[in-house]
Structures are given as C-alpha cells and as structure tokens.
C-alpha cells in the first residue's frame, strides 16, 4: 500500500549538499508494523516525513495506495495526510491552548465532518486510548504518557490507514513507554499499518519488520521471528537485496 522506489532527498544550503535519503526502495504492505532504527542523523525522521507527505523528495517515486503522489499540489497532499495518515511525535506536539477534546478534534475539523460525526469519532478515539475522563483537561495538566495517548487518539480519530510514529516513547519512562507500545500494538492488530522510528531494540523486536538506516540508506532488514539476515552483508549485496524488498 505504500511503495517507495528510488526515493532520494537532498538538503541544500548555499555551500553544502546533504543527502538525507539515498535511493530508498521500500514496500510496505497493509497491516504491517514496521520500525525504523538508526543512529542520530541517519535519515530516520526524513524517511518518516517523506512517507507522511510532510516533505518533498527529489528523485524516485512514492505510491500511496497505488497512486503516485509526486507532483500533487499542497492542498491535495494536505487532504491525503488528513485522510490516510496519522502522526505521533516524540514531543507529543499537542496544541497547548486546546483541551484534550479539541486537540483530537483538529484533524477532523480539516476533514470537514459535521459536529455529530466528530464527537462520535473523538469519543471513540479517546475510549481506545482510555482517556475519556480527561477530555476537558489541558495538555499540561496531563502526564507525559497521557499526553502521548492524546496524540495517539488524535492520530486515530481520522481512522487513518497509516500511523507514522517518530520515537513515540522517546520522552517517556519505561512504564509509560510500555503502555504506549501496547496501545500501538493493539491498534496494529486492528488493522492499521504503523511505521515507527525508535532507538529501542526491545521495541523494534515487537514489530513485524525492522529496518536499519544509515546515512540515508537502508542497510538492514529484519523480519519478526527471524534472525537478523543483513548483519554481515557488504554494501554491494545490500543494494542487491533492496531491489527485492
């Protein structure tokens, strides 16, 4: 359902050109739970942003549900994000002046649902994350884990096909992280495709597939339940592998 073929992303300043993504080929099937690992600056977040249509790319093709997104205008991209993709960030990125209910409401507003439909979806999403009782609280009145659950509810409310999570547990202690992880797993089990960036090997192990990224290239892919198949590969064989992914 999401297919990247030879996607490259280059950041240019006046002096330096940085290749953030280098000819990425990636095919994600519906219902997968994929984790992306890699050191800081390796291009994980860029990959997620490109996949989430937040950033453009210079080369290659990106197919979402079989449709090529290259060349779509900003409004179309916004609509796609709104309908098909849900975001969860490390820093939660809740709107601080809005209560929980209204935060979850934000994407639904842009979707253009009527008030009744929005309320139904918000209530539903809050119930999934178990925060129905906190709907009138402001984000700062909540714990980190609760805030992240609000963010998840917001991502879920639009019933997206994809959930993109950028280190969703990075700012949380281990208990809370576990809670959030369980929640994501549950959501995945109900059919939502999830791509998650993480540092945590333990979390990565729970995914159906785990991708390692270094210097803008995918260097290693591990399927759940299997041993690491790319660990000792040389650069050239890796590239050969990508083609088959």
């Amino acid at each position, binding site marked *: 359902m999401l297919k990247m073929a030879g996607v490259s992303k280059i950041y240019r300043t006046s002096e330096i050109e940085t290749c953030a993504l280098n000819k990425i080929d990636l095919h994600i099937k519906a219902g997968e739970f994929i984790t992306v690992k890699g050191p800081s600056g390796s291009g994980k977040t860029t990959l997620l*942003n490109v996949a*989430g249509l*937040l*950033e453009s790319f210079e080369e290659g093709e990106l197919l979402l549900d079989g449709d090529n997104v290259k060349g779509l205008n*900003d*409004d179309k991209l*916004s*609509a796609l*994000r*709104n*309908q098909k993709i849900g*975001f969860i*960030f*490390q*820093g939660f*990125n*809740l*709107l*601080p*002046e*809005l*209560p929980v209910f*209204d935060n979850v409401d*934000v*994407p639904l*507003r*842009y*979707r253009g649902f009527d008030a009744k439909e929005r309320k139904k979806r918000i209530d539903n999403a809050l119930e999934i994350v178990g925060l129905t009782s906190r709907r009138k609280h402001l984000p700062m009145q909540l714990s980190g884990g609760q805030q992240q659950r609000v963010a998840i509810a*917001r991502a879920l409310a*639009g019933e997206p096909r994809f959930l993109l999570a950028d280190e969703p547990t990075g700012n949380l202690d281990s208990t809370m992280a576990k809670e959030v992880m369980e929640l994501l797993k549950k959501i995945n089990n109900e059919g939502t495709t999830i791509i998650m960036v993480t540092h945590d090997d333990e979390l990565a192990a729970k995914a159906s597939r785990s991708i390692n990224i270094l210097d803008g290239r995918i260097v290693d892919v591990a399927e759940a339940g299997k041993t690491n198949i790319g660990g000792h590969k040389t650069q050239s064989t890796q590239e050969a592998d990508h083609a088959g992914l």
Partner: protein
Amino acid sequence: MGIRPILLSFKQSKFFSLMVVLQVALTLAAVSHSVFSTNALLRNWSVPSGLDARNMLIERSQFFIDDINLDGVISRDLQQLSQIPGVQHVTTTNQIPFAADGISEVFKEAGTEAQRYLAATFQMNSSALDVLGVELISGRSFYPNEVLKGQLSPETEYPSVIMISDALANEMFGQESPLGKTIWPVRNAQPAEVIGVYTNFMTGQILNGIGKSYNTTIRPMEVWTPAALDPGYLMRVDPGSAESLLENVRDVIYQQQGRYVFRNEVLTRTKKRMHDARSSQAMVMAAVSVVLVLITAFGIVGLVSFLVRQREKQIGIRRALGATRKNILRYFLLENTLLTILGLILGAALTIGIAVKFPALSGTKFIHYDYILYVAIFLWCINLLAVYWPAKKAANIKPAQVIG
C-alpha cells in the same frame, strides 16, 4: 474551521487580545473624529463657483477725508476703470463673491410672520451679469435707468426691480416661474418685482457652509453711505490679463488724494481664502488619520508576524494533521477579524460617547453614524490586508521543519 479554537487561543493570550481590541477601538475613535471634522470642514467645499474668477478683479478703497460727496467719485471711477485697456466691464458692488458673508433675509410676503429665505444681496449696476459672467435664464437684466444712484438715506426709495439666482428661485418658488413675482428683500420694507433669473454663482463661506452656496439676489444700486466711505468695484477683464492690470486699477484710485486701497486683487485670491482655511485644516486631519491608520496597520503586521513565529510549531502540527494553506490563512484572518470586530464595536461606542459628551464643533451636525460604519469597514479591510502578509508567511511554513 471553527471559531472555538480561536476563542480558546484568546483565553491563552488575554493581554495581547485586549491590546489589539483597544488599539482598534482607539484608532476607530480617532479616525472617525477626524472624518467628522473633515466632513464638517469640507461640506459643500468643492461645489463649483459658477464664476470665471481668474479673469475678475476686485478693488475696494476707503476715503479717510470726511465730507466727500461720492456721487462724482463713483462715476469718475467707473469711467476711468472701464477705460483701462483690458477691462471689459465694471460694476460697483457692496459684496464680493467668495466673501459675501453679509447675509440678508428675503421674503415672499410682507408681515412679521413671513417665512425667511437666506441669501446674499448684491448691489450692482446694470453691468452686473456681464461682470459676473453669469447667464440670464429667464426674464431680463436691469436697464441703466433702473439703477438707483447716490447717497443712501433712511428716506431713500429702493429700486422696484430685482434679479434672483436660479437656486433662490427654486427654493422660493419651486417649479413656478418667479418672473413678475413680488419679493421683500428686507422684512416689511419696500418690495421688488423679480425681473430676471440668472445662473448660480458662489456667495461666501457662511452660506456655503449651510448648503446655500448659490442663494443670491442682485439689486440695481450704485450707492454709498456717509458712514462707510468705501466704494467697491468688481471688474471683468480680458482673459489672462488680470494679474497685470492690478497696478493700473490701483493707480486710478490713488490718483485722488485722501483715498486708501485696502483690497486690490484677482478674484482667485478671494476664492483661495474661502477655500484654503478649511481645506488646509482638513489636509492636516487627513494626514494625521493616514499616519494613524498606517501605524495601526504596521502594528498589526508586526504583531501577527510575531504570533506566526510564536505559533510556528502549532501551525506545523496543524499542517501535519491535514490543514491546507488556506485553512491556516483563514485561521489568522478569522482570528484578527474577531478581535477587530470587538475593537470596532468598542470604538464605535467610544466615538459616539465622546462626540456626544464633548460636542467638538458646534453649529453644524457633527456625528454621522454611517461614517463610523464606513471608517469601521475601512479599518477592517486595512487590518485584513495587514494580517494577510504575515498570515501568508504562516501558511507557507513547512511542517517538517518546525515539529520535532
């Protein structure tokens, strides 16, 4: 996108919102007052004069020697002035157009209860219409033998004929023909028969100010009084020669001993005096208002730019969640509009309150409620424009760069 998130964001920045509201309110009050005042100043300011002022000269002089019989002087002056090459027509006059502020009351009937009509009465000789350059619409002009000459005394019998302007004819008689009608140029004094109606020409500041710029009568009189030994002349000259003839005209008067010329000018100068006192004040008002609106607008540009920078992350999040550029633009425009409307309502109340509590300029109608509305709409548009630029910048924020 709804209003609710905006209201919630006001709650978070009460001080900001309050300041914007106050600023808009004060600007509206100040600009409305300038507009009221400018309006009061420029009411009827620009109505056409009906006169070719560039080619008309005035000459007013005074005798400072007592016991002069002006009969001879006036006929001498008229003769000598009309002999100056370039002078086409000359008449004596008691008032000067553009400065005719000696207002008289004219009546359609005798008696103390009669309705009055305000007008400026000109006493001129049979050249009146030629000098003024106005046209006869109906009836006839004065015959030279109808012109009353000599010293005016309480026993003088005033001329029995009179001409009135088109505007005054309309006001007094409506659609009826005024020709042959009798009017009383002074309450209960000798009446006169209307023999002619001429096209309109400008009176002066005061009648202009009350919307009766063209109410005039002309009586056939070439007279003087012992108390004011000041014959005045109005001349029509060859086109373009007015300026160069001033000296010659003045010399004619100063050839006689005991005379003092206190006005010797082209009529454009008189016209300028009538207009400039008001227009210059209006100009100051307008300049001040423009600067004020600009200041408010720049303030709002600066403020919204700041808000945009403040909210970069929020905008990024909203964009990530599917907001289009238009959504973001609309958000800022709507937010500003809400504050502006609040400010405008407060400002309108302030404007009316102040204008009622301290009636600034007495006499004329000062407050115009519809003007407040126009100024408010104008300010709103300016504010929208002011917000548009920074809001556009906000809409162009790339979500990936601001959210981490």
